[in-house]
Each structure stands twice: as structure tokens, then as C-alpha cells.
């Protein structure tokens, strides 16, 4: 438990650093969002409105220290300021609307990719030297291909040429976004191609990573001993070899979970999926600093939470980490 408390402390410190950087970086840049907004309206704004906007965006001439305290206070209430792109919508609302789409699509796809990839890696290591080794070049190829290229290829083949799947949006224009079977069906149908993209593009990493560690583990004495004990192949493969081989792969899984929020920007853009990635693109296009800031904050926090989950998983899976280190 001391281990976890220490890790938790570390993550809180890191989160504070991330929040502080997130506060500082935009303020160190020249100009402010209101000037940008005024510029977009070609200067046809009366000074009173400019003043109102400055207040709305929380821009003040107070000291940096005072601004920092205000920022932390607002953050505690979940206030991230107003978006410029979607003015006057709050950034927190924009993120709250798009985050479920990303987490739902990328999160589920990452999980599927991890489960299938790990299982395939285990089996391929177990059956090394057989025809299954033929999958390796394909996996290496997929490992090397950028995932937006996979997305484009899938859109071209299954979306445009064969027209089996829709190529954009998260659900059809003909359904209402409500809790109904019809809506769920439309969401799944629209998520199919982007999900397959993510699974295909990230699974190769899982397969190769798991297979490599597993092959090493198979040479360990305890695996030979398990075999000598006359245990079934299934038990030797999963409880002895894979159970140990999975430990080094937990970290990489945690990293990919952390990047669920921000990592599939290009996939979302190719499929015009209304997730965090698309929002980030819009934010960048419109120099929407409050929105970008909010999204970056969410991404950093997601990475930290994922890492903490990985630490938890480690404690559960590896008894050696439970030992009190003196």
C-alpha cells in the first residue's frame, strides 16, 4: 500500500505541474483571445463589447499570481473558460460533448486491439516455428504503416468503392440522438470503420511486443518446470508463461490508454468523427486557445490516470511489487 500511496503522491505532483504549465504557456504568448476575436470580426466591435468579452474570457490586468489563483479556483469548479470557435459555449461543455465519442470509439477499439493482440502474441510465441510465423511479416507491415493511411485505405475500399459503411459522422442524419435501439445501431454502424482502423493499426504493436516477451519467458526455468510437472499445455501457456510475459506489456498498454483521448486525432479527422481530436483540429484552425488549453489538460490528466491504473494493475498482477521496499 505504501507503494501505491507513493505513486499517488507522484501523480498528484505531476498533475499540478501539468495544470501550471497549461496555465502559463498561453499567458507567455503574445496577444490574447479577444484581440484574435476582434481581428476575426475585422475590428467592427464597439469598445464596451470588447470589455465585456475580456471579462467573459477572464482576461484581467491582475498580477500573474492572482490570475493563477483564480485559474485554480475556476478549475476546481470545472470552469475552463469559453470557446472562441463555439462562442459563447463553455469549453467544458464542448469537451463534455465530444469526450464520450472519443472514449467510446478509441477506448473500446484500443481494448479490443489489446485483448486480441495479446492473445495472438501469446499463441504465436507458443506455436513459433509453425505456419503461424507467417503472420509476422504482415504484423511488421501493419506496425510500420501510419494509421491515418489505414483509415484512408478503408474509407476508399469499404466506404467509397463498396459503399458498405458510412465514411463520416458518428450517427446517421435520419436518427435522433436519444436512447433507442435505432440510435445505438446507427452509432455502431458508423463506428465500425474507424474502430477497425484503430484495431488494425495498433494491434500489430501488441502482437509483436507480446510475442517477443513471451518467447523469452518460454525459455525460463519455471516454464520448463511447469511442462515437466505434466501440466496441460493450456495451463503452462497461460498461467505460467503468459501470466509472466504480460507484466512488461502493462506499461505500454497504459500508455496507449492514456493516448486514447488524444492519440487518434487523425482517425477522427479522416472519418469526421465528432470526438476530442476533431475539436482539437477546429481549435487549432481558429486559434481557440481556451479550447486547446482545455483539451490539452484533459489529455494530460488522462495519461496520468491511465498510468495510475497501470500501477494498480501491476500491484494486483505482480506480487513482487507488493513487497515493502525498505
Amino acid at each position, binding site marked *: 500500500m505504501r507503494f501505491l500511496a507513493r505513486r499517488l503522491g507522484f501523480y498528484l505532483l505531476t498533475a499540478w505541474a501539468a495544470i501550471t504549465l497549461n496555465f502559463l504557456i498561453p499567458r507567455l504568448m503574445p496577444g490574447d483571445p479577444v484581440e484574435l476575436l476582434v481581428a476575426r470580426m475585422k475590428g467592427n466591435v464597439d469598445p464596451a463589447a470588447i470589455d465585456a468579452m475580456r471579462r467573459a474570457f477572464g482576461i484581467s490586468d491582475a498580477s500573474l499570481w492572482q490570475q493563477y489563483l483564480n485559474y485554480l479556483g475556476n478549475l476546481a469548479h470545472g470552469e475552463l473558460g469559453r470557446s472562441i470557435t463555439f462562442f459563447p459555449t463553455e469549453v467544458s461543455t464542448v469537451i463534455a460533448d465530444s469526450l464520450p465519442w472519443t472514449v467510446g470509439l478509441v477506448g473500446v477499439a484500443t481494448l479490443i486491439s489489446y485483448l486480441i493482440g495479446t492473445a495472438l502474441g501469446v499463441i504465436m510465441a507458443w506455436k513459433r516455428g509453425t505456419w503461424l510465423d507467417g503472420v509476422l511479416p504482415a504484423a511488421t507491415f501493419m506496425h510500420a504503416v501510419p494509421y491515418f493511411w489505414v483509415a484512408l485505405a478503408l474509407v476508399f475500399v469499404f466506404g467509397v468503392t463498396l459503399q458498405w459503411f458510412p465514411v463520416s459522422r458518428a450517427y446517421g442524419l435520419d436518427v435522433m440522438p436519444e436512447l433507442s435501439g435505432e440510435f445505438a445501431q446507427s452509432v455502431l454502424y458508423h463506428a465500425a470503420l474507424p474502430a477497425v482502423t484503430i484495431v488494425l493499426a495498433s494491434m500489430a504493436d501488441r502482437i509483436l511486443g507480446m510475442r517477443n516477451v513471451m518467447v523469452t519467458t518460454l525459455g525460463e526455468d519455471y516454464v520448463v518446470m511447469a511442462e515437466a510437472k*505434466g501440466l496441460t499445455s493450456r495451463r503452462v501457456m497461460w498461467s505460467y508463461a503468459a*501470466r509472466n510475459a504480460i507484466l512488461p506489456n502493462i506499461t505500454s498498454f497504459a500508455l496507449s490508454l492514456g493516448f486514447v483521448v488524444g492519440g487518434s486525432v487523425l482517425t477522427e479527422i479522416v472519418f469526421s468523427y465528432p470526438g476530442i481530436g476533431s475539436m482539437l483540429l477546429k481549435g487549432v484552425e481558429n486559434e481557440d486557445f481556451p479550447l486547446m488549453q482545455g483539451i490539452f489538460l484533459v489529455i494530460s490528466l488522462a495519461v496520468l490516470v491511465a498510468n495510475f491504473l497501470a500501477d494498480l494493475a501491476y500491484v494486483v498482477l505482480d506480487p513482487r511489487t507488493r513487497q515493502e521496499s525498505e
Partner: protein
Amino acid sequence: MNVLEIRDLGVDYLSGTGAVHAVSGVSLDLRRGEILGLAGESGSGKSTLANAVARLLRPPASITSGSVVYRRQDGSAVDVLGLGRNDLRAFRWKELAVVFQSAMNSLNPVITVGAQIDDVLRIHAPRMSRAERTERSVELLQRVGISADRRRSYPHELSGGMRQRAAIAIALALNPEIIIMDEPTTALDVVVQRDILAEIKALREEYGFAVVFITHDLSLLMEISDRIAIMYAGRVVETGTAKALHRTPRHPYTLGLLRSFPRLRGAREELLGIPGTPPDLRSPPPGCAFHPRCAMAFDACSRTLPVLTSEADGEVACLLNDGRGVS
């Protein structure tokens, strides 16, 4: 009488630069309930021989010739090398168990010691209830001197000696006829080593299993073994009772091994050791593989491969004195 009969066994490691003949033409008997010591330098093929008997060899190793026959108490014979998958699983651990070189690595780090005994029982004795299995695990651990509450410990929570004891407890789980011990005490300090050896002897008295005890430490073998087989370059060069081997070694190699360490008692002797290095097993020297390092070699040694011939209290493969070796 014999529980295991190895005949003309050959094992090759296939490599890009030619096959390595790790074990060639080995014939060896293991008698019921005896401790057979298997000694030799690193790379002499002792572990390969043991792994071949347990069918644990993996590619690129392959058995090229010979047979291994296991004889049950009722006299029926089992062709070990011809066992199918399921029969092999049953043979392993019920009839033959293995204690590996370092128990540090032979216990699964993420499973408790108790669970590692339990899974053997669950597979091989499916009729035992959970409570019976737990009871048996505790009994086994206590038998090797580990307290019952250690059942829930993970390997990293045990000392080296305790881990080795736990590995022995796992080996005893099904009362096997044969236990192969591959350098079971090498990684331990001498005091713990002595305890473990005494334990092995006591357990053998109690359960009556036969042991193949592999080590490069001949002095240790002299103490624990009933009989000893000396291997050199993949062949057995001499066998005999521990006493006979100690008193009158017949093969120059055995003599060299015996003179590689000082005696604590008795007359002072010159430490001879063995000059040179073990041969490359891809192309072993013609004739007797030991002749380039042998002080007593003569012409015929580089031409004729000596065969293992029976003597009064053992066997030797040496051309000296018309095949009787050093006398």
C-alpha cells in the same frame, strides 16, 4: 531391479555450423531406490542427458538414436521416447520428477508456493478435494522443513535454501519413482547445501525413490551417491560405486577430476587438475575424445574409440592396460 534403462542414447544440437553431438552412445542403468551421481565438466552433456530422459529437450536439440525404458514396479516396461502427449503428461511427475538447477528460477514468481504444489495435484489427482490438496501441500512443505503458513508465500519471499526445499516438496508431490536433480545445490552456500543433501538422503530412505544427481562437484557426489557415472564429451567414460571410484579411479579423466580438489584428510597429494579445455563437440577428436588432454595417452588412443567395458565393480572406457584403465 532397474527402474530406468538408457541404451545408446544420442542427442544432437543442430546449428548452422554443423551438429553438436552433445550426447552420444550413452548407456546407463538407474537401479530402484539408488542415488546415481552424474558428474563431468560443463558441456559434458549431463544436463542434456537428463533433459532427454525427461523429454524436455527443445529444438534445436533432437534425439538421434537410442532408447529410454522405464520399468514399473510390476515389471511392465514403458518406452519413454515413444510416449504420446497424454501418456507423457502422466509419466511426468507421477513417475519422474525434476528439481532444476536454481530454484530461484524454477518457481513461478507470480504464484504462491502452495498453489504450485496444488496445480500438480489438481492435474494428476483429480479425485482429491480442495481440502485434501491443501492438507497434502502442507504435509509436503512440512516434510522438507517449511512451516505451513509459508504455503501462501510467493517465491521471492523465501530464501534460496527454502526455495530449493519448496522445489523438492513439489517434486515429492506424487511420490515419483525417479527424481532427476540437476545441480540442485549449486547456487546455495555450503551450509545450506549440506542441509539439503541430508534432507535428500533422508527423504530417499523414507520414500524409496531413485535419484539422478547431476553436478560438476565430484567430492559432493562421493558423499551422497551410491553409484557414480562420469561423463566426458557426451559419453560415459566410467561408472562405479562411489567407494570404488574414490579408491581406484580407472579412467585418467576421473583421476584428473579427483585430483582437482584437495583432500582435507589423509596424505598430501599434488593437485593435478586437467590441462586443456573440453573439445569442440561439432568435431570431437578421433579415437578417445580425452586423448589430447590425457597425460597417459599413447598411439592407439587417437585411432580407436574405447568402448565401455565391465570391470569388477564398474565400467570404464579406456584403452590403458588392455581396456582396464589406470590400475
